[in-house]
């Protein structure tokens, strides 16, 4: 059965580090690591020079420092990366209306509908995409092309750096076959072990199981393994969540102080919601406890969420609910990290049918618009809503701000 879909997965090569190397010629050819500073920080991006030493993203910075002492460590400049991300995003949008960003530097682009307008083979479209990104940003993107999202993502990953790889529909099983099962979406350490115990090592081993013999708990993975995943590319307006989080330089047990930081995250999330013209109906609070997990450097995370009566793009509302979840007292203290996410995202211009509130005067909207203008001009550090913001500065955030979930 042919799905006829053509999905591109575009992933910037060492994005943050490449932006730094582009803007600071003295860093070119040298190992560059962007991320939180030791001891608590985590690597957000490593240039290819640094990767040769075994440094990779999500690795504790302290470990990266040991592996590659001569690397240049940079705290990163999220504002600049965000700006760059929007330029890249504009290029993606030239190729299709169906773009699903996964993070600042990565997106699925479904060109099925635009194939005719674009002209050429999928591989030619991929090549043009790479050229346009380089033209517009002087940065390098790797592109994977496949009829299935997961396969496109694996293809771009395997092709890096500066890669372009197409997996045609009839080549999917052959392509996936030899890959380890950990490449499959949804296979973490626990599932991987369980599959290994069944004597399965590669995706091909799993795909080889005949359909009627697939145990029910493996059905979803088996479908993925055969490259039959039907998940659609979900354009931006349906992006599932907007999140902001930070790791503290020291563990924090003071709930008031946490609520201050939560308030800042909520405002930042709300600003991004408003920028994209969407509202969120679910507020999620995440904390990382100090409880160590078996894997070194990993800690147990907890999350709590609440559904709003009316979806919102208002930071004060997000903050109120997130703080309430924090104050409920069922989360462990102290915490290493706190994050706020808005989910249940939908377009704000579906405001048709929006129930107006008695106690939220239209002025509130104007206030938010004013906050946005100030943040745009002077950066989000320039403004905090209301009282209690002074503590926030003391929170000495390591610059590990993760976006987009």
């Amino acid at each position: 059965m042919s799905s006829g879909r053509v999905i591109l997965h575009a992933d910037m090569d060492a994005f943050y580090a490449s932006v730094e190397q582009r803007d600071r010629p003295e860093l070119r050819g040298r190992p560059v690591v962007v991320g939180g500073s030791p001891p608590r920080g985590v690597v957000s991006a490593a240039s290819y020079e640094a990767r040769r030493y075994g440094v990779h993203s999500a690795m504790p910075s302290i470990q990266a420092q040991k592996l590659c002492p001569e690397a240049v460590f940079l705290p990163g400049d999220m504002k600049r990366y965000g700006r760059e991300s929007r330029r890249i995003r504009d290029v993606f949008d030239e190729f299709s209306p169906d773009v699903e960003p996964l993070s600042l530097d990565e997106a699925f682009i479904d060109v099925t509908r635009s194939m005719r307008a674009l002209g050429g083979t999928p591989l030619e479209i991929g090549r043009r995409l790479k050229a346009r990104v380089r033209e517009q940003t002087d940065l390098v993107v790797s592109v994977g092309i496949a009829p299935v999202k997961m396969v496109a993502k694996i293809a771009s990953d395997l092709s890096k750096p500066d890669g372009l790889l197409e997996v045609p529909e009839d080549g999917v099983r052959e392509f996936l076959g030899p890959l380890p099962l950990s490449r499959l979406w949804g296979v973490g350490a626990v599932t991987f072990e369980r599959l290994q115990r069944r004597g399965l090592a590669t995706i091909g081993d799993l795909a080889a199981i005949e359909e009627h013999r697939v145990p029910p708990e493996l059905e979803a993975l088996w479908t993925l393994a055969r490259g039959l995943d039907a998940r659609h590319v979900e354009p931006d307006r349906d992006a599932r969540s907007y999140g902001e989080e930070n790791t503290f330089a020291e563990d924090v047990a003071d709930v008031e102080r946490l609520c201050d930081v939560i308030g800042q995250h909520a405002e930042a999330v709300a600003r991004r919601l408003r920028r994209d013209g969407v509202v969120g109906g679910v507020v999620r609070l995440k904390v990382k406890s100090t409880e160590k997990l078996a894997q070194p450097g990993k800690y147990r995370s907890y999350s709590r969420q609440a559904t709003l009566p009316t979806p919102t793009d208002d930071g004060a509302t997000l903050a109120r609910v997130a703080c309430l979840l924090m104050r409920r007292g069922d989360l462990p203290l102290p915490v290493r990290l706190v994050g706020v996410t808005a989910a249940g995202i939908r377009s704000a211009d579906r405001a048709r049918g929006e129930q107006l509130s008695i106690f939220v005067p239209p002025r509130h909207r104007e206030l938010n618009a004013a906050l946005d203008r100030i943040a745009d001009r002077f950066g989000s550090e320039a403004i905090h809503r209301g009282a209690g913001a002074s503590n926030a500065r003391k929170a000495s955030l390591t610059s590990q701000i993760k976006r987009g979930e």
Partner: protein
Amino acid sequence: MEFSIDRGEFTQALALTQGIVERRNTMPILANVLLEAGEDVSIAATDLEIHIKRRCGAKVAQPGSATVPARKFYELVRELRPGEVTIRSLENHFVEVVSGRSRVRLVGLPADEFPLFPQSDQGSGDSFGMDVELLAGMIDRTVFAVSTDDTRAHLSGVFLTGGSGSLRFVGTDGHRLALVDQPVKGAKPPAKGIILPRKGLAELRRLIEGRDGNATLRIGANVVRVELADVALIMRLIDGEFPNYEQVIPSSVKFRVSVPKDDLLSALKRVSVVASDRSRGVRFQVTSGQLTVSASSPDFGEASEEVEVSYDGDDLTVGFNSRYLTDVLAVLPDGPRVEIGLIDDVSPGVIRSENDETYNYIVMPMRL
């Protein structure tokens, strides 16, 4: 402890406690009712927010107290044969129930672990009496508008305030607001107001259903105690600041539409069938002498109905959540006509029974 009591009366008394008994089982003792035998017998239940105590006449052979699991005990007593039932406490907190030839022993918990019934003189609050029917009406006209959103504690109860000799209840969920004023002789509500929790009011409403006579309200610092002939209910007040509701009540409205209540209610019920499930939005189009109620959704279709009204102002179109309207139409004071006051399509509408100023309902529009 040992006493004998009529099964019928005892069943009724136990039924009153069932709504309060803790379902979540955080403290095992809260799943029990407390039985106390003195001159008469009382049954008490609590979830720590609401306490209820019902007295019943009984023959007490041996004063004392015991606790038994509320649900099991109720189920059992309900199934006993009519006539007298004898209840006595045994060793190790067992409670024995004897009726005719049946004999049941229930596992109990120590009575001294049961939370104390809060004392009424807490905060030395004022007390006043009021007619229970009047109280029931004030609850019915406000509690439905209260928020069910647990993240907004300050909106999840009815605000009680008023002046000397008058009582005001206000309920709101942030989208609509119901306000009722009643003269109550001798009423001395606290000027800054208190917030009565939704669940406590629902229990109180159950207690006074079908009763007549007076209820005594005593308002303390953290609790309100309501006393009826044979029942006392204490509810913990909600700690929070009620929003400045007076500020959002329009001081004047631009347009007044007078509508026959029954016509409006039935039109709403028919038209809202095709409204979207999520928003339940309906459109009000007022023109001279006519109100057109309409709704449409891509999933269900479209509907419209014309209602004859007395109106001679400008044409105006405004959207509302139909449920917010049918809710209030069901509890409006008697009277054949409803007055709808409107300003524009983004300002609050005011609904009241014509010629009755004691009850006002403010509802925010929906964007069309």
